[in-house]
């Protein structure tokens, strides 16, 4: 039985970390192992952390509009390092018009304001690759 390992990261210059911290705590309470990177991480630092920590999931919290720059870069860096089993999800203020662009990158978990913590827990359990065996 393998515990799901999640990196919660705040990329960009924004410091509003309420959402990131609440989600980190909810995932931990749901039995996942959570590494919170702290603030102002570059895409390179986030991908490095994911590789070093052998993470199953990268959860990004972005409220500032920087997702159009940050998300493609993270996906590109993962590809360059031949990492294909990390699920990337993003929460925050993401305009509707940008959601298809994120989906095209393979980021299907996009969580707007008002999303329940439980929905995010469920999404991660359903989509994590490879499927964990026998987690609660």
């Amino acid at each position, binding site marked *: 039985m393998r515990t799901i390992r999640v990196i919660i990261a705040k990329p960009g210059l*924004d410091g509003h970390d309420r959402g990131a911290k609440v989600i*980190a705590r909810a995932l931990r309470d749901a039995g996942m192992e959570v590494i919170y990177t*702290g603030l*102002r991480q570059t895409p390179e630092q986030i991908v490095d952390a994911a590789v070093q920590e052998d993470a199953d999931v990268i959860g990004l919290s972005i409220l500032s509009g920087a997702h*159009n720059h940050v998300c493609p870069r993270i996906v590109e860096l993962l590809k360059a390092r031949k990492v294909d089993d990390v699920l990337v999800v993003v929460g925050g203020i993401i305009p509707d018009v940008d959601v298809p662009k994120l989906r095209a990158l393979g980021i299907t978990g996009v969580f707007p304001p008002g999303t329940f*913590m*439980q929905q995010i827990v469920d999404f991660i359990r359903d989509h994590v690759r490879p499927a964990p065996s026998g987690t609660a």
Partner: protein
Amino acid sequence: MTAGKRGTSATAEPTRDDRPDRFCTTSGLTVDPVYTPAHVAALDYERDLNDPGEFPFTRGIHRDGYAGKLWTMRQFAGFGTPEETNQRYRHLLEAGGTGLSVAFDLPTLMGRDPDHPLSLGEVGKCGVSIASLADMERLFAEIPLSTITTSMTINSPAAILLAMYLVVAEQQGAAWRDISGTIQNDILKEYIAQKEYIYPPAPSMRLVTDVFGFCAARVPRWNTISVSGYHIREAGATALQELAFTLRDGIEYVQYGVDAGLDVDAFVPRMSFFFNAHNDFFEEIAKYRAARKLWSQILREQFGARDERAWKLRFHTQTAGVSLTAQQPYNNVVRTALQALAAVLGGTNSLHTNSLDEALSLPTVEAATLALRTQQIIAHESGVTDVTDPLGGSYYLETLTSSLESGAREYFRRIDDLGGMVAAIERGYPQREISDSAYAAQRAVECGEQVIVGVNDYVEGETPDVPTLYIDESVAEQQVERLHRLRRTRDADRLSRSVDALRAAARSRDNLMPPLLEAVRAYATLGEMCDALRDVWGEYEETPAI
């Protein structure tokens, strides 16, 4: 009435007829079913309330309340290029706004130029991009700074943006002695809540007290700080935590000012405050009243201030951004109106009302205008402004005011025991308290204990499309190109002399405003000035607590 559909993952299914046995405020204060004279029997009118305009100012700092002068309707705005924001300001002033309030983008807040690698994707997104005096000139083009008051939400680089504003005022022919406005300049709540800090606490606090000292002498009508509970609340604090941490921050600033050799009666009268207006109507009103009472008592008794203006807590209020929902966004108009009414009944001195679309994007001009109209309707149609502190004497409100006051004093004792607010922050105390409250609040929504209309009750499948403002990358391209042109055309000698002088001043104990003003006049960029200070002071890194 049929029960609304709940969010699919709500774990409990309370029905609307199933009312709880007892109610609590957001701060966890238990509420009795009814309030009577017995609840307020211990209160002494003159000691605890007194008439509006009289110590301890529980009922307001002005004897005639809003009958004399309405609050300032000050809508926070900023996005894209300085020209785009200038257009929005002129629209808001034409629509009856009575003051300006500048929202800066993240690179500006963090002291980075638009072409810095960390600024990628952030230029002009959350506010206006201001990289040098040239941008500040564009921002206030054809806006007379001699008559308009401006609030600037900027903290770590506050002294630099203030210097830019002063130089623009000078260019317009406005005397520094006459201009007025507010600089947020509140670094403590950045460490606690919003996290837009650059330098470690000691040099950051020096920048704050340098602004206190400079303005007391040269810009006497300027509000040198806006001690902010707003962001503390948005980060998850309860009303009580917002009150307690904000007032304790205020005490810390006064103490640092005194320690820097300033006279309490010279700088405290220009300190101002900034609170949130959240959903729990009466608790919010009580919070503002308790804040005024606490501040006057602390300044008179603890710091021995003699100037009555130092006892009077003046504050701006913004309705709670965090209470806005992306679901059924038109409901946000109603939430904002109720929150604004609480701020007015609590005697706010200025007010920003949020726009209905702010859970989705920065506000469109239509949404921002409706938010301003909300204030105008309260001011001119509701009648609540005709009488000063109309709720004074309410058994319930006075009980809540007393409870919040004593709860705040209990927090002050805990923070004093930790060695003061800077020490408490370094140990993560307020940050942990706030995270705990944020998590508890989210759980209360998910288990249905706290109903949020449109989110966990009365849910509709489809969200109506509301128009939103979209900032594209052309803003960044334009700002970067301008910056490169500026770097080619300015006087290189004057520039390097001024930046060297700034670095030297940072190593000394001299007031930093004069060298900052000279660097601004030499068109040093914000990033260049902040880097000069980074060279001397280094950068702060927090240990995150979850």
